[in-house]
């Protein structure tokens, strides 16, 4: 590639070349043909279903929903503008960021989908494998390539896994969906232990990474923390070993009951040792050289990633502290929505898509355009979607934070709540989803409004509150310190509370507190649970720690106390 083009590589993501573009064009043509065969009746809905799902197209309660892949959650400003265009032209002017760092559009017409895929392909995006029983979008750390605690940027290996898993001939009709997350930091921000495969990279010898491989974690109906198979997987065997795990799963995973079909059930049924034995046997028997991932392949992929051209800056902490002293609202936002950067003078900032009383994860086309502009102006044209349904600008100069914050605030994106109670994860729920038992959005909005006061939220401190509209747990309620699960109680929407979930390196599954309550009762019960925490905590103790120390009893008493 000529030198002048190299500087044009998009920061933080892989740049397609001609071959990638041609591949995508062929796939869009294939889907256009499939849609035509469906519309003509040559394909039955039953036959069309897995094909549309392979292209991220779901049939929901009121319309088709298109889920667009954002590999490892990173996208460029132009890609964000393409998403804004899709929202405006083909949807109702907004999109919804998902817990797999993707975006979904909820009001799509079947006959428009080939044209939408064309728009996406022009922006080097697609919807391949965002649904169906295949390897889904590989997720990664929202602070990849920026975080102070990072060992290596996991996105290069995430891209390698994305490519390897793209229309994999053997693993596209698995027993059930398959989710992989990869972290390049010991500080697990990707919920590695709640994935079918979680990979945690660290540096090995000769400057090449090695991986810990965690398998069989997951949420859904049967929440399970994954088990570690090995912590010394060499980079060159990464593909071979994952092939081995997937082969064992494809052969032995249950297919008689879709609720027992995830790999976590197989791992639990066999036990870690027996499962590992099968994987090792496959790994030993396979033609390892065929699947070898040599360093030169990794470096060739890495060479198609743009890197930010940081300026040499002094540490801006002191000047920032002075600005914070002058403006309490700004100080609150800096306190919650920024993350330390490895480059002096820079930080990562999280744009909250959870305004007070708003719908978690929704963004309007105008907001997407604004975020794209801010990315261009302040963060090397790069954006990330987080699995908490927020947006990150990864590399912002500390001395520009104030002006970025002012622009965000003027556009409804300046909420200072990242990591706090109202930074709620919620699935689309019964407002959209045909599987849901209850609406997730209204209760999220009520909680968001109830706890909107920034001072109150800061007093409560770090707290993860997750809401799912049914036991399929797309809102990750089991992984929330406080989880809310929508259920159907004799034809009425009702909500169960779970407490004690956590998705980090000390992962745990939330436990059900008691019987389900109405929406308003649930909101009140959570307020009383918070009161117990505020009264009973020791100085500096987070909610999850107080819960672990005290157990469920005092919280349960409060939740069900009728005053």
């Amino acid at each position: 590639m000529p030198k002048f083009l190299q500087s044009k590589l998009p920061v933080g993501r892989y740049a397609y070349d001609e071959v990638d573009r041609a591949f995508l064009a062929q796939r869009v043509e294939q889907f256009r043909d499939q849609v035509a065969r469906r519309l003509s009746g040559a394909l039955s809905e039953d036959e069309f279903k897995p094909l549309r799902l392979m292209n991220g197209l779901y049939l929901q309660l009121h319309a088709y929903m298109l889920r667009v892949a954002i590999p490892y959650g990173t996208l460029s400003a132009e890609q964000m503008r393409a998403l804004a265009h899709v929202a405006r032209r083909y949807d109702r002017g907004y999109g919804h960021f998902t817990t797999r760092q993707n975006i979904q559009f909820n009001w799509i017409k079947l006959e428009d989908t080939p044209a939408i895929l064309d728009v996406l392909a022009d922006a080097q995006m697609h919807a391949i494998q965002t649904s169906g029983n295949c390897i889904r979008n590989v997720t990664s750390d929202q602070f990849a390539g920026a975080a102070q605690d990072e060992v290596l940027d996991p996105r290069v290996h995430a891209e390698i896994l994305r490519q390897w898993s793209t229309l994999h001939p053997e693993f596209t009709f698995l027993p059930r969906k398959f989710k992989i997350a990869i972290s390049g930091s010991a500080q697990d921000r990707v919920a590695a232990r709640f994935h079918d495969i979680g990979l945690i990279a660290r540096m090995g010898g000769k400057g090449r990474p090695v991986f810990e491989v965690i398998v069989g974690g997951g949420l859904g109906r049967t929440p399970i923390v994954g088990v570690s198979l090995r912590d010394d997987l060499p980079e060159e065997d990464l593909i071979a070993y994952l092939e081995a795990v997937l082969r064992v799963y494809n052969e032995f995973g249950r297919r008689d009951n879709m609720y027992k079909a995830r790999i976590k059930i197989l791992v639990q049924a066999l036990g870690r040792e027996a499962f590992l034995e099968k994987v090792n046997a496959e790994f030993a028997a396979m033609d390892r050289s065929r699947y070898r991932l040599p360093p030169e392949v990794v470096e060739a992929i890495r060479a198609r990633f743009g890197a930010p051209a940081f300026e040499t800056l002094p540490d801006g902490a002191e000047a920032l502290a002075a600005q914070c002293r002058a403006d309490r609202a700004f100080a609150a936002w800096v306190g919650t929505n920024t993350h330390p950067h490895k480059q002096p003078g820079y930080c990562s900032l999280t744009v909250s898509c959870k305004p007070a009383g708003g719908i978690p994860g929704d963004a309007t086309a105008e907001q997407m355009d604004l975020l794209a502009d801010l990315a261009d102006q302040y963060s090397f044209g790069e954006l990330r979607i987080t699995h908490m349904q927020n947006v990150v600008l990864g590399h912002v100069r500390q001395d520009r934070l104030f002006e970025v914050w002012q622009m965000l605030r003027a556009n409804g994106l300046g909420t200072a709540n990242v990591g706090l109670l109202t930074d709620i994860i919620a699935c689309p729920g019964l407002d959209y989803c045909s599987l849901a038992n209850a609406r997730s959005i209204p209760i999220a909005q009520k909680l968001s409004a109830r706890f909107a006061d920034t001072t109150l939220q800061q007093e409560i401190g770090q707290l993860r509150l997750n809401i799912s509209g049914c036991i399929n747990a797309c809102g990750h309620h089991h992984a929330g310190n406080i989880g809310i699960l929508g259920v159907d109680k004799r034809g009425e929407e009702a909500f169960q509370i779970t407490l004690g979930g956590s998705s980090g390196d000390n992962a745990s599954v939330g436990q059900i507190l008691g019987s389900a309550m109405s929406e308003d009762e649930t909101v009140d019960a959570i307020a009383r649970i918070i009161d117990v925490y505020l009264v009973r905590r020791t100085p500096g103790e987070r909610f999850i720690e107080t819960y672990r120390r005290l157990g469920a009893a005092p919280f349960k008493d409060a939740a069900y106390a009728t005053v």
Partner: protein
Amino acid sequence: MPLFENGQITENGWQLAQEGVALPEGDVLVPLSRLAEGLGRNGAGRLGVVLEPADRVESLREALPRLALVCVTFGSFRDGRAFSQARALREHLGYAGTVRAAGHILPDQYEFLLRCGVSQVEIPQGSDPAVWQAAHTRFTIAYQPSVLDEKPEGMGLRRWLRS
């Protein structure tokens, strides 16, 4: 039902063993449970085995040199075990004979079948051969190695599907 192989429709000269009936003369396909009977058969004709999705490929290891065809089956196109069976036949057992795929399969899966080592498919009733023809030439690139050992494209793990 017609067979599709190398972009061509061909005739199926194989007979399927009928339950409770002695094996016929000629080329015959037997279920795994009748493999020994097939191997002990006198007279001319080639032998093939039909694998059900739950059958272990490994159980063919001994007999494989004497099998001209192994047929993997799809009860439903959603059940992807046959992909792994075909791949294991090629990769683990080094099988060089014909691997056939039969049952409920879609032309949209054709490329996957080929790349797992399937050499011919039994086109399901009512499936338009023209769509299979189109599927045969639709794509030029794949993103991972396969048992076909296609030529590396030069970038990452990409492979040329046709040289």
